């Protein structure tokens, strides 16, 4: 089903196909909707021998990531996946992985957070964990999901980075939608992604303390190094995408994708699968002569500060559309975009924040059109509105 060549698979299955090509030695995960089919497919691959990995059955998400950290500490490539409540349950371990510089790769199915209980997609789970030291990527479609997971290992394990990566897929809209996906040849992926090598390996011949204490005198230096490594990852992401393009022919545009932004007066900034709804709206409005654009943020960490400034330099009005709200203020993506723009000479005249899609609420194309109309009308009173 997921052999090299074209396959008709879901976002989750594209992740599983990508993970198999990346050849992790350890997979530890706990099932949660809408992530479940990722680890079901991986379990089948381990069972049928097409993925020679240890598949650990764990009792919780906290244990799943802990096991991946332990595997990484002995020099094994590891993978986990989670969603929503499960991601929050492993929150403590997210900091352990990034602080210990263990290059674990994780897929997160973006899903609402209780209460009220809800299994559908929004991005409050991962965006509330933006500060945990993980690289955060947001996929738009199944093909990008597969390509991201392979690239993620090359990025995470790069000696200048050594930082874990979280790949986010919108729950159901992306995780469960079937698309045509090109699955790379394993030989090509092996050439692109050599086996994991680390000097921090737990090794009886060269014993070291792992996971040690650092008191007030030295602790901050470790945090500063994490920050510098995260900043370095922006360059490594671009280099990795270039190498991946040479191998597969699929080229990715770096931390953001600017679609029709060059001369755009009105731009919607967003991330994840909803960009797939915004893009045809932009194309239709463009065909009617309107100067509109889409800026899709592919990586929230490291944040594409310069790319955002460049892409929005000529815009009159910008709307940040996100499936997230930091209660009492604004959406977290908006906060980040606004911060980047305040350091720009070309701040747009209006910067609005559209909160939508919470708990899986649909964002149809007609809503996107009305957002562009509001950007042009300049009559919104409030900066933050729920759509």
């Amino acid at each position, binding site marked *: 089903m997921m052999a090299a060549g074209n396959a008709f698979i879901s976002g989750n299955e594209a992740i599983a196909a990508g993970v198999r090509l990346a050849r992790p030695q350890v997979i530890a995960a706990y099932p949660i909707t809408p992530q479940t089919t990722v680890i079901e497919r991986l379990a089948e691959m381990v069972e049928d021998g097409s993925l020679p990995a240890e598949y650990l059955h764990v009792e919780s998400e906290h244990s799943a990531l802990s096991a991946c950290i332990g595997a990484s500490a002995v020099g094994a490539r590891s993978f986990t996946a989670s969603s929503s409540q499960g991601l929050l349950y492993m929150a403590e371990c997210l900091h352990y992985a990034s*602080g210990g510089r*263990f290059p674990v790769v994780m897929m997160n199915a973006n899903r609402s957070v209780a209460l009220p209980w809800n299994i559908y997609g929004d991005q409050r789970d991962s965006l509330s964990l933006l500060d945990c030291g993980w690289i955060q990527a947001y996929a738009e479609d199944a093909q990008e999901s597969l390509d991201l997971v392979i690239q993620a290992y090359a990025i995470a394990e790069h000696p200048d980075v050594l930082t874990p990566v979280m790949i986010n897929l919108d729950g159901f809209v992306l995780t469960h939608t079937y698309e045509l996906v090109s699955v790379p040849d394993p030989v090509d992926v092996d050439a692109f992604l050599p086996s994991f090598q680390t000097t921090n390996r737990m090794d009886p011949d*060269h*014993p*070291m*303390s792992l996971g040690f204490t650092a008191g007030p005198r*030295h602790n901050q230096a470790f945090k*500063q*190094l994490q920050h510098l490594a995260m900043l370095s990852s922006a360059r490594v992401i671009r280099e990795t995408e270039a190498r991946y393009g040479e191998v597969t022919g699929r080229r990715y545009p770096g931390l953001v994708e600017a679609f029709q932004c060059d001369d755009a007066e009105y731009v919607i900034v967003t991330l994840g699968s909803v960009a797939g709804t915004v893009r045809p709206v932009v194309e239709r409005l463009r065909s009617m002569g309107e100067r509109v654009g889409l800026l899709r943020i592919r990586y929230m960490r490291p944040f594409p500060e310069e790319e955002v400034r460049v892409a929005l330099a000529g815009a009159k009005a910008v709307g940040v559309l996100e499936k997230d709200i930091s209660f009492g203020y604004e959406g977290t993506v908006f906060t980040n975009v606004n911060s980047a723009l305040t350091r720009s000479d070309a701040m747009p005249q209006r910067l609005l924040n559209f909160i939508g899609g919470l708990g899986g609420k649909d964002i149809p194309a007609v809503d996107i059109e009305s957002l562009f109309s509001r950007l042009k009308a300049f009559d919104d009173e409030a900066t933050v509105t729920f759509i």
Partner: protein
Amino acid sequence: MNHPVRNTAYRPPSRLEDYPVGTAFPSGHLVDINAAWRSERPVIDTERCTNCLVCWLLCPDGVIRRTGDGGLEIDYDYCKGCGICARECRFDVIHMQKEGS
């Protein structure tokens, strides 16, 4: 076995590039002394000590060292002054002496 000795040649990192990447670093040596809260110190009467090693076994910080010539000595850089060695000594040859006296 004796506890690790302090590595006096060790210099803590002063520049960012001197730090390890992540929390992995060779260990097996001590880099700082740690005994500041001791109010009393145990003193061994080495003339009467039988070298039975009960104190050596029971010291919770492992700071009683076998000297190699049949004797024992206490590493006061790490002794916390808990008094377990004095209490457990079967020949009553370890006594607690007030610090500063």
